[in-house]
């Protein structure tokens, strides 16, 4: 467990340079700071937290309580950002006016080089609507929703996490839990949709069957247009309902949902 805690710390640090600035800040405050209240909060307290974080006994107890996934959040109470900013400002205040601008400029460059621009994160994209949900998901949900009733629909992988954020009356035979590898083992319907080629007999076994497919059969199945079906879907009462932004929506007409 102690090794896991160290590994979590290393992952948390990223390149480690910002943490380096934090340690330098601690050293500066150790030498220069005379105010005991600030020494407690920006020197003794962070050191105590770090000692606790790496204490094997503490690791064993806390790991058991809060779990290994979130143990690193214990580091959040170390005021790293505020300590660095406070130190930089103290040094700035102690400089001659002419040198202050150059000092702040250098600090900003060092911060930029040490960290990573937050908006360069690959998961950021320009919002497509006021819901911050992909517009295609919104259009599909609006198309299959039935007033005053819950419907069940199987969605492709890229849409699963958004559907119930937008409309909770749309149920799914699987949810985000099957997308996270450490939680689950996928789902047969999703695996078939993701494979690019669907054997109709096998597919329908899962989408229609209450016992095996889910606790309720699928009223709608959404698949990318390029998916190839091997077999006749219509023989099972499943017909093409609509096509939206490159996704085909199939409707199982054998279950009455008021459409």
């Amino acid at each position, binding site marked *: 467990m102690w090794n896991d805690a160290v590994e979590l710390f290393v*992952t948390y640090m*990223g390149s480690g340079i*910002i943490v380096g600035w934090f340690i330098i800040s601690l050293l500066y405050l150790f030498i220069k700071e005379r*105010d005991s*209240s600030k*020494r*407690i*909060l920006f020197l*003794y*307290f962070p050191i*105590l*937290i770090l000692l*606790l974080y790496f204490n094997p006994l503490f690791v064993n107890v806390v790991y058991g309580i809060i779990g290994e996934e*979130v143990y690193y*959040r*214990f580091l*959040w*109470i170390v*005021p790293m*950002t*505020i300590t660095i*900013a*406070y130190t*930089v*400002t103290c040094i700035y*205040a102690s400089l001659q*006016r002419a040198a*202050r601008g150059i000092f*702040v400029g250098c600090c900003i460059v060092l*911060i*930029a080089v*040490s*960290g*990573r*621009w*937050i*908006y360069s*994160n690959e*998961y*950021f*994209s*320009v*919002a497509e609507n006021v*819901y*911050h*949900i992909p517009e295609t998901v919104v259009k599909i949900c609006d198309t299959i929703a039935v007033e005053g009733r819950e419907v069940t629909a199987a969605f492709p992988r890229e849409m699963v*996490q*958004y559907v*119930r*954020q*937008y409309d*909770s009356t749309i*149920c*799914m*035979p699987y*949810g*985000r839990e099957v997308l*996270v590898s450490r939680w689950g083992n996928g789902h047969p319907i999703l695996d078939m949709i993701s494979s690019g080629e669907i054997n109709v007999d096998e597919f329908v076994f899962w989408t229609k069957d209450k016992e095996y497919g*889910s606790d*309720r059969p699928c009223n709608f199945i959404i698949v990318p247009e390029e998916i190839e079906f091997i077999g006749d879907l219509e023989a099972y009462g499943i017909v093409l309902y609509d096509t939206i932004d490159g996704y085909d929506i199939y409707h199982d007409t054998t279950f009455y949902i008021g459409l």
Partner: protein
Amino acid sequence: MVFLGCLILVFWLGILPVFVGSIFSGKNSEYSNSVVFRFMSGTMLLWAVFQLLCVPCVIRQESFGLVVIGYLTVSAVLFLCGMLSFKKYPLRFGEKRAMDVAEKRGWIGFCVLLVMQLVCAVVLAYADGDDAFYVAVSEITNDSNTMYQKSPYSTGVTELDIRHGLAPFPIWITFLARISGFHTATVSHVIIAAYLIALSYLVFYLVGTQLFTKKSAMIPIFLDIVAFLVLFGDYSSRTPENFMIARSRQGKAAIGSIIIPMLLFLLLIILRQIQEGKKNSAVIWLLLTATTTAACLCTTLGTFLSCAMVGCVGICVLLVYKKIVPVIKMALCCAPAAVFALLYFVLG
């Protein structure tokens, strides 16, 4: 309808906390009559009250409508109490003083950085898998009027999810969606995202006021550096800065970037008062209690983090100042959080 919804949210998120925070104002206080202090303390009290109201309703499997009515009623009472206090202790906007060029530049730079982050919160979407839980819980609550009784991920009814129900931050978001009439996804991803980022910087400002009591010209420089550290805080996906900007609608982001800095601000005041041999005012202890309770609203881990923070600072106080009474008071301020921790073990 959109205009009315905006007005309601401006009142609830912007004006109401200032009046509620006036409860914490005092005659001789050096900080409690400032608008930012009142706003933040009002927000903490309103969050704490929501936690105290909502969790029993979740446990008893009451309807969300009951939480809405209860919270509106209690907030109205707090608003009236705040109004009375506000009349007695009006806002103080600080003495006007001339700013030098560097200070002006510092403030302008900070405002540019802040506005940029707020605009990005509105126009940029961040794809985070955890939203499939938190935002879906908000949407389900609004739609079904039940709390934590339906699976957010896939299908309909499930057994009560008490583990998450002890930290009902998504339900607070649903409350805002219900009173404003906006979609829960819009409130979560757009309104609350931008609001909580602004709130974080207000807390950083408060911390700055305590760090630079005699050199207030340094506050904008401090905030500029904080803003740059936040903007370049994506050195790992686990930093509080990453959560603050990318996942600001999730309660765990509020813990890292609002509650913990707020606790730091309050502890700075408490420690300074101990250092100067002054008696700590009841207001600060009440506010510390409200903040540790608000931590429980954000995430179940907030219980542990807030208690650990106050506890460790308490140990340092004991070692440095050798005073036991403030440490006992600190421990008492964690009592509500300790109760929620107990509930977690008993029910979870």
